[in-house]
């Protein structure tokens, strides 16, 4: 599943690691690229006096740190800069960041590596090489100063952007020696600091990009504008897989501001106008005839029925197996059985998908927000039909991503429209309604769990049958393994570094019957860990109650071989006061999970009155290996609870007549201030691995609350969202 960048004269393959990854794309090179530089304006103005590729220093001591992973609010930009600044011994107050474009990366033979921010990978997959970049730059600066002073470099030290020759007391600053340092060779494989000596990394520093966000100056993709730009509103066939039959442009072409009505591709039509509001107004009035295709009869109910059949169908897709689960179940003193299901979810990024494109016969430029600049670049190349050296993609800030912005359909569409109006910059913006109804969705699955208990209430066997949709079959078919989707089993794996099943159950079978409805699935914050954690952690709770045992004690008995899983579980139990009674009328739930390399657990305290659930308090623990910025991790933890609990209570996408029903935040709700539980974070890095941060705690948000709701009501909720079960947040 690791990506293998391949490069030859003609083709350049961008791949990304599996979950939340994205695309493996062949980018055809223009022949010219080998000899000539790419035209200047397809690139970013990068600071000169480069010390390797990650750091450049200006004469005024400004430290420019290159960050290529996308920043969408998760804080990786600040965290990666901290890691580099740490090794660089930089003065943090002088640090800024800059962004080499994907075209810059191609020009430098992909020196900056992977641009993708998804699967909580931005730091965990690049910490090594970016830290080495910072360390190498520091060594170059020290050597340049030593050369100037004609002393051995070993007699000099660097700290806070200043170099000191200890014996003579001479000092100089990074800015003064940067030009000379930039001419020195870049040291390979420099030694790195021990994290226990960190002064910048590991500290709860503030984000680098806040000032512009509180005055309205941060430039999101939707804010981009340029002279002569027109705006486009788009409409896709409401049924996935359908097509445009015809549309009557004459009906709207006289409307104010309207410039052109275009067919974008076989499934969508756009109106281009002076302003987006005019375009949207005209689009609403445009008569379009659709060929809705063969999926018009599909509904949530028909999908559910199909998935239900998968709960007992034959399958060979096995994710985890030990002993003989069937035998253990048939010989059980007590058998426990339950069926769960998890619905489609929308990313509902607060900034709807959009991109600006300018196409001329010999060049195509795009300005957009993407979680993966290289994927956006590949999409622009493919849609424009131009060679890579004639295409540029510029980065703008993302108004959230959550996985949605790893898909570059909006870049493709913007370019396809711009191609029909060469020389005119076109900003394509999806309305909220289009964004919601023609997106890609958290996949739908069901799960049947059958557990075997012996007479003492020990778990002797477990069969977990997942039925439903594969993300990879749609998003990355080349990553399927013998027809099976390995990421279906996120958090349930027998081993590995990503997501290990944390219970020792002697007879175990976890398998998958794949059924792929026509609704396109995609990576959605937490991906398959979301429902896998709900299924498993709710059911473990069910078995504990069936065995008449405390859910924490019951779990612990099966976790001796999983000390890190157990570590976070114990931490939340202790903080929430599991061994003491909860306040009057308040009930607790607890759970744990592992995913994207990190160990997470949560405990929830709720009270339920009628159909109203009050979430009083959440305690969440994470062991992400290294905690590069605890303040930002704390924010990711709280934020992941908002996102996960929004989906649990208010979310869920229903399908009717082959199309998505929920069009906006009135029917696809999002938690607001009054509903937000107090989230207490425990950040407990064990410093012996590197795990992710942006997603993992979302896995335990829903199961902790569901287990607490059971404790409060005696009712086990197994289908979601809870609004459909008449359960609301108080």
């Amino acid at each position: 599943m690791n990506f293998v960048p391949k490069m030859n004269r003609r083709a350049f393959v961008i791949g990304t690691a599996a979950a939340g990854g994205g695309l493996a794309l062949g980018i055809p090179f223009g022949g010219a690229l080998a000899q000539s530089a790419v035209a200047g304006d397809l690139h970013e103005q990068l600071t000169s006096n480069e010390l390797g590729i990650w750091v450049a220093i200006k004469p005024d001591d400004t430290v420019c740190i290159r960050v290529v992973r996308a920043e969408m609010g998760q804080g990786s930009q600040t965290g990666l800069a901290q890691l580099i600044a740490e090794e660089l011994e930089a003065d943090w107050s002088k640090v800024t960041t800059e962004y080499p474009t994907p075209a810059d990366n191609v020009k430098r033979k992909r020196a900056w590596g992977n641009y993708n921010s998804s699967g909580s990978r931005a730091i965990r997959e690049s910490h090594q090489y970016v830290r080495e970049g910072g360390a190498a730059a520091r060594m170059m600066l020290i050597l340049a100063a030593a050369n100037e002073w004609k002393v051995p470099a070993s007699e000099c030290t660097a700290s806070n952007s200043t170099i000191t020759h200890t014996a003579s007391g001479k000092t100089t600053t990074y800015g003064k020696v940067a030009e000379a340092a930039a001419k020195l060779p870049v040291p390979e494989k420099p030694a790195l600091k021990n994290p226990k000596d960190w002064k910048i990394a590991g500290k709860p520093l503030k984000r680098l990009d806040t000032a512009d966000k509180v005055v309205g100056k941060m430039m999101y993709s939707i804010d981009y504008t340029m002279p002569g730009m027109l705006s486009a509103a788009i409409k896709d066939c409401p049924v996935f897989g359908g097509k445009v039959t015809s549309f009557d442009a004459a009906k709207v072409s006289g409307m104010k501001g309207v410039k052109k009505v275009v067919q974008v591709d076989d499934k969508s039509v756009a109106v281009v106008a002076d302003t987006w509001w005019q375009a949207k107004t005209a689009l609403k009035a445009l008569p379009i005839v659709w060929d809705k295709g063969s999926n018009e009869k599909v509904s949530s109910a028909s999908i559910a029925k199909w998935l239900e059949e998968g709960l007992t169908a034959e399958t060979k897709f096995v994710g985890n197996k030990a002993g003989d689960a069937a035998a253990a179940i048939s010989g059980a003193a007590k058998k426990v059985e339950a069926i769960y299901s998890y619905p489609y979810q929308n990313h509902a990024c607060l900034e709807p998908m959009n991109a600006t494109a300018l196409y001329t016969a010999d060049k195509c430029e795009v300005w957009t927000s993407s979680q993966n600049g290289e994927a956006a670049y590949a999409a622009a190349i493919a849609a424009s039909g131009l060679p890579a050296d004639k295409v540029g993609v510029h980065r703008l800030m993302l108004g959230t991503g959550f996985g949605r912005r790893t898909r570059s359909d909006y870049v493709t569409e913007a370019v396809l429209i711009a191609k029909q109006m060469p020389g005119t910059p076109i900003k394509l913006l999806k309305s909220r309604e289009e964004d919601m109804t023609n997106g890609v969705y958290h996949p739908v699955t069901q799960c049947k769990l059958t557990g075997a208990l012996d007479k003492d209430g020990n778990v002797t066997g477990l069969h977990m049958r997942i039925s439903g949709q594969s993300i990879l079959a749609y998003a990355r078919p080349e990553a399927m393994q013998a027809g099976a989707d390995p990421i279906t089993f996120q958090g349930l794996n027998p081993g590995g570094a990503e997501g290990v099943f944390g219970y020792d159950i002697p007879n175990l079978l976890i398998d998958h019957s794949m059924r792929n409805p026509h609704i396109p699935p995609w990576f959605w914050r937490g991906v398959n860990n979301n429902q896998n954690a709900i299924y498993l952690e709710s059911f473990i709770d069910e078995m504990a109650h069936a065995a008449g045992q405390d859910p924490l004690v019951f779990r612990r008995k099966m976790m001796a071989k999983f000390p890190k899983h157990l570590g976070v579980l114990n931490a939340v139990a202790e903080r929430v006061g599991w061994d003491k009674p909860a306040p009057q009328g308040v009930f607790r739930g607890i759970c744990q999970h592992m995913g994207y390399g990190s160990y997470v657990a949560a405990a929830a305290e709720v009270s339920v009155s009628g159909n109203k659930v009050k979430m009083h308090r959440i305690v969440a623990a994470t062991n992400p290996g290294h905690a590069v910025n605890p303040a930002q991790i704390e924010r990711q933890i709280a934020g992941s609870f908002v996102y996960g609990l929004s989906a649990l209570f208010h979310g869920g996408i229903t399908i009717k007549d082959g199309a998505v029903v929920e069009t906006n935040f009135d029917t696809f709700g999002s938690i607001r201030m009054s509903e937000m539980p107090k989230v207490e974070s425990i950040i407990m890095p064990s410093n012996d691995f590197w795990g992710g941060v942006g997603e993992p705690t979302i896995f335990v948000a829903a199961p902790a609350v569901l287990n607490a709701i059971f404790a409060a009501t005696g009712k086990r909720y197994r289908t979601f969202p809870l609004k459909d079960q008449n359960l609301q947040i108080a």
Partner: protein
Amino acid sequence: MVRLNINGKDHHIDVDPNTPLLWAIRENIGLTGTKYGCGIAQCGACTVHVDGVATRSCSYPVSAAANAKIVTIEGLAQNGILHKVQKAWIEHDVPQCGYCQSGQIMAAVELLKNKPKPTDADIDREMTNICRCGTFQQIRAAIHAAANA
């Protein structure tokens, strides 16, 4: 032609009177700090002050704003000095992606105008904007800090 007074400056713009104030501000005036999130008065990303009242501009026709004093996020700082709410937002490192924050700040400014020392219950009641990143704990802390500034 519609006359709009935004952040103390008059603008005369040629728009359909039914155009939502949000789009007039963003596209005709060119102030993009005010955001589009839903277009149906659900999310609050488009919040501006119309005669001092926090208003979801996506659902407010530009014609109704013709004689009003409108303040957007860009007009909150006075003479280059940030509003105490903006300062508190920086101090508490509130924004994640930041996309909702113009609206959150405009809502918080109005809340503090009406309730200089809001309780948690006041904040729960008045701060109804969506934040998909989930910055509510920081928003709450920053509002209390601004109230005490």
